């Protein structure tokens, strides 16, 4: 019954099924939510988003001001200004561009402005690499943004729509970043069902009832604080980010109801009875891990995948509950946290989540797909085999495994 109902919702809301890259899916979502101000600067692999948006604006398909800024720093600064004036805004970037925005990332969340940004992830210089991974995304993880990591073009489209609803919620008022794989998603054409705009707009009503620049009631935004005040104002934003999890769940539920989808802040794949779990994020890691789980199950291993979709705030209880019955777990990071005990950034999050809830499980840290180093389904299948062997011997590696590294790690 539930399925039949979902299907009929789908039939009603879906306007057409298109072949889109994740980047184009972003542009279509931004169009659907009736954005007011777009400011962006070209950078690979983000550029095709803003090319598509520029095309929409040029053809009058979006009534928005498109600011072709002279840098990423100005891109985020301009949307901060526009959001402070009450507009619904969008920007996008990758890699060096996100680094160049870094200063303003913190300001955006500190000023509690509902900015939405898309980031197809990419390796950071030096050496320069235009290829995809998540090092740029991870460098932004402490900036106080809500961070969603999508795994398909459809999910990217849906996430951008949800992002506006979340960001502008009066209980949240925080910027939202929608991240996904550079190239492996940003430039991969997949089917995307786009919605009739009336449904999207109904789902994302404007909220002008927030602090904004208005001569009728002049307020000051962007103050300087002494040690007497900074801590309290910062804590408000930290608390808002933590509390946003419940509201994000609420928005997911309502989105699922309105659009006949099935999103949650984490995705569980063959997880219920899994002994061995790969924890992943993004499209390539999770897609290949799912294929590998199927392969492993065919060969008698109870394999499952846990995909982290909401990365900040980190879904601590959800993650712990999802893996608490597993025998062994591997966290696959497409990013690096050099100099840490383990170099996988999300590994550290997972371990800290388990520890905080008193769950002691063998977890191994795996780094893979750096600068889009080829990841094969077989690599992920081999990880299940490795977990099985570790579980049998009781011996676990006490350092990060750098998969696919010529020469191997030491």
């Amino acid at each position, binding site marked *: 019954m539930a399925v039949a109902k979902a299907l009929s919702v789908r039939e009603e809301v879906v306007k057409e099924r298109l072949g889109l890259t994740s980047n184009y899916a972003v542009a279509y979502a931004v169009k659907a939510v009736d954005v007011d101000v777009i400011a962006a600067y070209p950078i690979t692999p983000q550029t095709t988003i803003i090319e598509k948006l520029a095309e929409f604006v040029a053809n009058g398909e979006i009534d928005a001001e498109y600011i072709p800024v002279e840098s990423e720093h100005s891109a985020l600064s301009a949307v901060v200004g526009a959001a402070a004036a009450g507009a619904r805004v969008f920007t996008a970037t990758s890699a060096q561009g996100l680094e160049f925005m870094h200063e303003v990332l913190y300001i955006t969340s*500190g*000023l*509690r*402005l509902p900015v939405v940004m898309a980031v197809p992830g990419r390796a950071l210089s030096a050496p320069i690499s235009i290829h995809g991974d998540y090092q740029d995304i991870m460098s932004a993880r402490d900036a106080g943004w809500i961070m969603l990591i999508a795994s398909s073009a459809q999910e990217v489209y849906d996430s951008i729509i949800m992002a506006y609803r979340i960001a502008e919620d009066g209980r949240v*008022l925080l910027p939202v970043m929608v991240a996904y794989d550079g190239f492996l998603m940003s430039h991969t054409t997949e089917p995307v069902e786009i919605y009739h705009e009336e449904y999207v707009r109904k789902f994302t009503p404007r909220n002008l009832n927030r*602090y904004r620049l208005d001569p009728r*009631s*002049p*307020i*000051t*935004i*962007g*103050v300087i*604080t002494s040690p*007497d*005040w900074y801590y*309290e*104002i910062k*804590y*408000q*934003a930290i*608390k*808002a980010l933590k509390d946003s999890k419940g509201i994000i769940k609420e928005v997911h539920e309502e989105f699922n109801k309105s659009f006949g989808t099935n999103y949650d802040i984490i995705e569980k794949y063959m997880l219920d009875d899994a002994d061995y779990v790969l924890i992943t994020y993004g499209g390539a890691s999770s897609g290949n891990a799912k294929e590998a789980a199927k392969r492993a199950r065919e060969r008698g291993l109870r394999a499952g995948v846990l995909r982290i979709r909401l990365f900040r705030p980190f879904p601590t209880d959800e993650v712990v509950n999802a893996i608490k019955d597993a025998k062994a777990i591997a966290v696959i990071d497409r990013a690096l946290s050099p100099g840490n005990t383990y170099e996988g950034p999300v590994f550290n999050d997972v371990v800290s989540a388990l520890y905080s809830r008193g769950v002691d499980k063998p977890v191994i840290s795996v780094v893979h797909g750096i600068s889009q180093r080829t990841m094969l389904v077989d690599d992920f299948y081999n990880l299940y085999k490795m977990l099985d062997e570790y579980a049998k011997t009781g011996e676990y590696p006490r350092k990060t495994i750098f998969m696919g590294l010529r020469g191997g790690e030491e």
Partner: protein
Amino acid sequence: MKQLTWKDLPIGGVVTEPGNARKNLTGTWRTERPVIDQDACIRCRICWMYCPEPAILELKKPYVTKTGKKYDLTYEIDYDHCKGCGICAHECPVKAIKMVPEVAG
């Protein structure tokens, strides 16, 4: 004010009351105070124009000088905020403003 917690403050460090900096009594910074000689003052508005604070008040307060000249306006110092820079005294074309040492207490 300092006892307010994070629960009491508007989000984002926004200040919602325009111009509430007037609660900063910068007059305490002064070592010398300007004193206007209302009889010598020619109401030229120059001190008012150049005051950085602004701490020179242009009041619709009639005044008759000792020599019988009538004015509609009176210029007075807002001693709560005047920092005592002395620009007014320096720029006054008729030297109607004197800088006088602040006395303790």
